[in-house]
């Protein structure tokens, strides 16, 4: 007799989670609902599906082709001065399962990932005759450790492994590294809950900026584990000396420098498990010395009580990001466009969105374009590459890094179908 009401109450508690109003959450002042969570976090993991003869969808006037397939978890790409494309392939992280939950959630999330093992290498793609087919595909460097960020400064190719920044010598036209890389500096790698080390070079080539994600969702591994985490380092290329450039950025997964102004921009993945429409992932210009809230607060001064003890001074100092991309979209790539992409897409950034897990209606799983005016985000984003998600239960790809080829092409790494896509104007 006690049983029935109890089971009823349990079922109610489990499902009473989410109405999920699809509030538009784009722009500088997104709608932020009250935090909420049922007994179980909302989880919806679209399963991998095949492309068959289909291709992703691009806007009128553009076409898309796969230029490399069969890769080993491609994440970020770099277009070299001669037009060759380098692809960083790998999969990192050493985070142990601390709780029964970690085992279960880890298994469920793995259902939405490629079964391929990370390549720990750089692949070079070349289109020698310029016909849009990258007929040459070879291994530029091997035996790396989950490489992710890539940057080229004056004949030096920098690669951000999950545990160290390394340098290769590079000369135009080279198809293979001349030897093993030289280590510039160790990067924070303990646990590596968020392992990706995003990277970009300053406009003058003096500095590299490296994004280092937090070691937890919301401090549940303890604050000791967060030393040197959730921040962007500025590294002096000559000396290897580094300092925190900006902090409180939960997981800065892609960095880029704005042409002209030299301003550093980042896309950042925000915290999970407080509702389908919290907390928005964002695109922001990164202010030197700035603090962006994690773990104490989000979107400025919205306190997250899960982080205890709280730090009111930090909360008061937290900067509101520039542009909301929507909650749980998992932005993993960012690149500034150029006029070669056509007048509708000449000024703005492309953002690769890996797609959600913590939401019953999946979001992300596409590449968007955020238009800029006078050097700032202005207006609604425009879908640029879609069609990855077939329906709510299946996806054919998951976009990660995006790179703009100066000649007028968008390069998209897809770590589910292990493909590099190239979008060009007709």
């Amino acid at each position: 007799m006690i049983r029935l009401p109890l089971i009823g109450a349990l079922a109610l508690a489990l499902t009473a989670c989410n109405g999920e109003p699809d509030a538009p959450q784009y722009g500088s002042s997104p709608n932020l609902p009250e935090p909420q969570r049922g007994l179980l976090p909302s989880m919806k993991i679209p399963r991998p599906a095949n492309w068959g003869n289909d291709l992703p969808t691009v806007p009128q006037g553009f076409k898309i082709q796969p230029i490399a397939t069969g890769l080993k978890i491609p994440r970020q790409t770099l277009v070299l001065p001669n037009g060759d494309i380098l692809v960083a392939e790998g999969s990192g992280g050493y985070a142990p399962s601390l709780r029964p939950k970690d085992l279960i959630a880890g298994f469920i999330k793995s259902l939405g990932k490629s079964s391929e093992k990370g390549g720990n290498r750089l692949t070079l793609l070349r289109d020698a005759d310029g016909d849009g087919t990258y007929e040459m595909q070879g291994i530029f460097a091997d035996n790396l450790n989950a490489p992710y960020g890539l940057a080229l400064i004056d004949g030096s190719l920098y690669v951000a492994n999950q545990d160290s920044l390394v340098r290769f010598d590079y000369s135009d036209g080279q198809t293979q590294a001349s030897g093993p890389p030289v280590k510039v500096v160790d990067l924070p790698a303990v646990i590596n809950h968020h392992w990706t080390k995003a990277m970009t070079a300053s406009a003058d080539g003096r500095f590299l900026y490296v994004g280092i994600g937090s070691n937890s969702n919301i401090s549940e591994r303890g604050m000791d584990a967060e030393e040197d985490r959730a921040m962007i380092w500025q590294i002096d290329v000559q000396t290897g000396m580094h300092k925190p450039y900006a902090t409180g950025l939960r997981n800065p997964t892609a960095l880029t420098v704005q042409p002209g102004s030299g301003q550093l921009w980042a896309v950042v993945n925000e915290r999970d498990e407080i509702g389908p429409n919290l907390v928005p992932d964002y695109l922001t210009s990164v202010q030197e010395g700035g603090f962006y809230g994690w773990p104490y607060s989000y979107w400025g001064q919205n306190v997250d009580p899960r982080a205890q003890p709280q730090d009111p001074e930090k909360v008061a100092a937290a900067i509101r990001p520039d542009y909301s991309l929507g909650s749980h979209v998992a932005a993993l790539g960012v690149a500034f466009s150029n006029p070669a992409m056509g007048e509708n897409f000449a000024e703005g950034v492309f953002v690769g969105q890996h797609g959600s897990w913590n939401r019953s209606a999946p979001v992300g799983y596409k590449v968007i374009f955020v238009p800029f005016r006078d050097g700032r985000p202005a207006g609604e984003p425009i879908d640029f590459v879609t069609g990855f998600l077939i329906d709510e239960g299946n996806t054919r790809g998951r976009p990660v890094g995006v790179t703009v080829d100066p000649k007028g092409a968008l390069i998209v790494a897809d770590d589910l179908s292990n493909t590099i896509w190239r979008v060009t104007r007709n």
Partner: protein
Amino acid sequence: MVAVSSPGSLRPLHPLHAILLAFPFPLFLGALISDVAYWRSFHVQWANFSSWLIAGGLLVGAFALLWALIDLFRRTIRTGRTIAYFVVLFVMWALGFVNALVHAKDAWATMPEGLYLSAIVTILALVATWIGYSGIHDGEVR
């Protein structure tokens, strides 16, 4: 709550059943103490300890519960006492499961619900164990 029958007809639980029943109370009590430690110290490792202690109590407790359920259908020993034992054990397990889900939330999100649930589940484990170890009635069919 307990149907009284003549003294001397109580018999102890089967030794293996008794061993299974020995787990939930100390494990849930450990979880409660860990929760109190987390409450006082903010040190998240205590919350991790609680999660595993609760999982352990549920795992072994599930077998004790299953045994109690089977006893319920063995007509010769279905008495008020065996029903009470099963019901308390069942509620302990169900709330313990809810508590495990609450403890799967990140960091301070387990508080304060996790602490309260740990206290309730610990008391229920104590009661269930007490009833169980008091012996079950033999013979009388009700």
